[in-house]
């Protein structure tokens, strides 16, 4: 089942009268349960592509449909709501809310979705246990290591029960041990829960684990390799 269907996607930035084609006519689709990595050198357009898929940026041309909805046709407030209900985000710099505990950070998304307290309580503890932080639910981000913070970020991304998770260079700031742990957790969630993960990365450790590797250069897909 196709979760994301991208047709002829183009994004042009107008920077001081010079037009930069960050994404140049990409067509791609992602199935439910994929564990895919978008790779490429710096400036190749992988982050722009990820932002377009996540509805954070608007395409200049082309179509992105998520579960049948053309997100190019949504206005900015519809897009915010769409992101809240359909997409989970994991950022390079974790971006947790520093004044909230791990559990509250996870709960917060569910509160935005209007979920009841009991459900929030149960699910946030369940998710934090799943990422191996069952003992640290009440710790603030400043008391957690980088790897632990990124695991909280993964739990937060999962909290809204999204259709897929976009992770922009999630391991860039982590040491090898933390990267290993994080990747194992995401792989396990992918296999057991059939959750779709799409990474942008140039970390070979992520590329090794990925079951599909899409290579982007100069805004175009130069290879799309599926592995078993």
């Amino acid at each position, binding site marked *: 089942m196709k979760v994301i269907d991208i047709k002829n996607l183009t994004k042009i930035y107008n920077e001081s009268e010079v037009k930069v084609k960050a994404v140049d006519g990409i067509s791609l689709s992602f199935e439910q349960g994929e564990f895919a990595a978008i790779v490429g050198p710096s400036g190749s357009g992988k982050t722009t592509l990820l932002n377009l898929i996540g509805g954070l940026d608007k395409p200049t041309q082309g179509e992105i449909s998520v579960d049948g909805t053309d997100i190019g046709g949504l206005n900015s407030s519809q897009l*915010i709501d769409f*992101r*809240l*209900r359909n997409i989970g*985000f994991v950022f390079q710099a974790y*971006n947790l*809310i520093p*004044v909230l505990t791990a559990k509250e950070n996870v709960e917060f998304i569910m509160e935005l979705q209007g979920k009841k307290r009991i459900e929030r309580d149960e699910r946030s503890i369940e998710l934090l246990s799943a990422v191996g932080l069952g003992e640290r639910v009440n710790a603030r981000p400043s008391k957690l290591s980088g790897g632990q913070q990124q695991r909280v970020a993964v739990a937060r991304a999962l909290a809204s029960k999204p259709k897929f998770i976009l992770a922009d260079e999630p391991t860039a700031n982590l040491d090898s041990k933390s990267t290993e742990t994080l990747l194992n957790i995401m792989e396990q969630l992918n296999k057991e829960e059939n959750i779709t993960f799409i990474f942008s990365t140039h970390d070979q450790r992520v590329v090794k684990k990925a079951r599909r590797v899409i290579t982007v250069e100069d805004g175009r897909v130069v290879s799309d390799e599926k592995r078993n």
Partner: protein
Amino acid sequence: MIWNISWKNVWRNKARSLVVVCAVTLGTISGVFVAGMMNGWVDQRIRSAVYTEVSHIKIQNPKYLINEELKHTIPNITEISDFLNNSDKVSAWTKHTKIIAMASTSRGSTALNLKGINVDEEIQVSNVKDFIVDNGGDYFESGFKNPIVISEKTADQLRLINYIISQELLDSITDLGADANLISSLSSIKNKRFITEKKFKAQLESILKPNDIKELGAQIMKLAKNYKVRSKIVFTFSGMNGEMSYQSFRVCGIYKTNNAMFDQMNAFVKEENIATVAGFMPNDYHEISIILKDDKENLTSFKDELSSKFPNTSVMTWKELAPDAGMMADFMKIYYYIIMGVIFFALAFGIINTMLMAVLERIKELGMLMAVGMNKKRVFSMIMLETIFLTLVGSIVGMLLGGALIVIFGKIGMNFASVQEGFEAFGWSAMVYPSIDLSFFLGVTIMVIIIAILSSVIPARKALKLNPVEAIRTE
């Protein structure tokens, strides 16, 4: 949870928030306390206007207002009396005769408003009785013939105050810690009578050291003051028939209110002691003073009722008779809010600055919140709540401390003795007891919330303009 985040965000940069909180606290304390002080003054002025000077409502002959001749007495006095006796809105009332007379003693003279009163009724309406000074006799309690109550100011003008260093004074001063030198200096003028304050002061300055005068001068002046109660005063005035009449009175009491002007003008005698010689008939009165049970509720309506029932009289409320106090009563509440408004307006700039810094240093986090699905309304609410919390904390602490100061100084009072004369010339007491309505605090709280909401607009707009993609990438 937005409330939770907002509250926690306020304390993220403790030092910065505390600076704003302290500024708001200090601003609120000063605003609340100044309002309390002014309110205390106004309350005192109104109480003095009503219970000492003019009562709630006064009825007079309209012609008397134009020309204060004795013949312009109040018409229909019997009907008015019956009406007032039967009205359930009236707490107390009394009638006065009023004569403008020249008062003289062997040493001085002055013009006075001689009010003929019924003592039993008068004490229900006026509190002049409470202002009889220490050692200044009493309020018509002595049994002698033709008693009169005059003010200290009048006594001074008629030279009825003198200054004596008595043995009692020396004893009291010794108790206060005066040394032997001072006592021996004072003893040199023991029992000598000084007939003016000026001469006594000059004498003290010549025999005492400047330091002693600074420390004990005021106390010595007060203790040496000797009122010549029972002195005779002769009044000259033109009676009902227009001929010059004379009547002598003996001072039975000396009063001093907070209003120097009132004191200078008014002396009180029993109505029966002046009626015959002035030629008043039994129902000849120049003014009726009324105290209402509930003046806030009934003042205007009762005035209108009286005016329409007795159209040939002039009915005036205290707000018209003491327009300064009336104006203050109506205007001061607004004025307190203006004071608070100005303070908070100035503080708003500090609040805006702090919140802008708070937004700018959290660009990445705000971008993340918008990326993961926090809509603009929620982002706006979060920043608005943060501003409200930040401002409200300071103002609540400020209101509590300001309120506590009002309660403390409301009990012990604040003495502005150094400017006493200037104050009393306008009918203001030099002793202020700050007070404030609880509703004022509610008003201030609402005001703080409004100011906080307005102050949050600029920082919140800044946050809403963020592009999540760019915000997340900001290092």
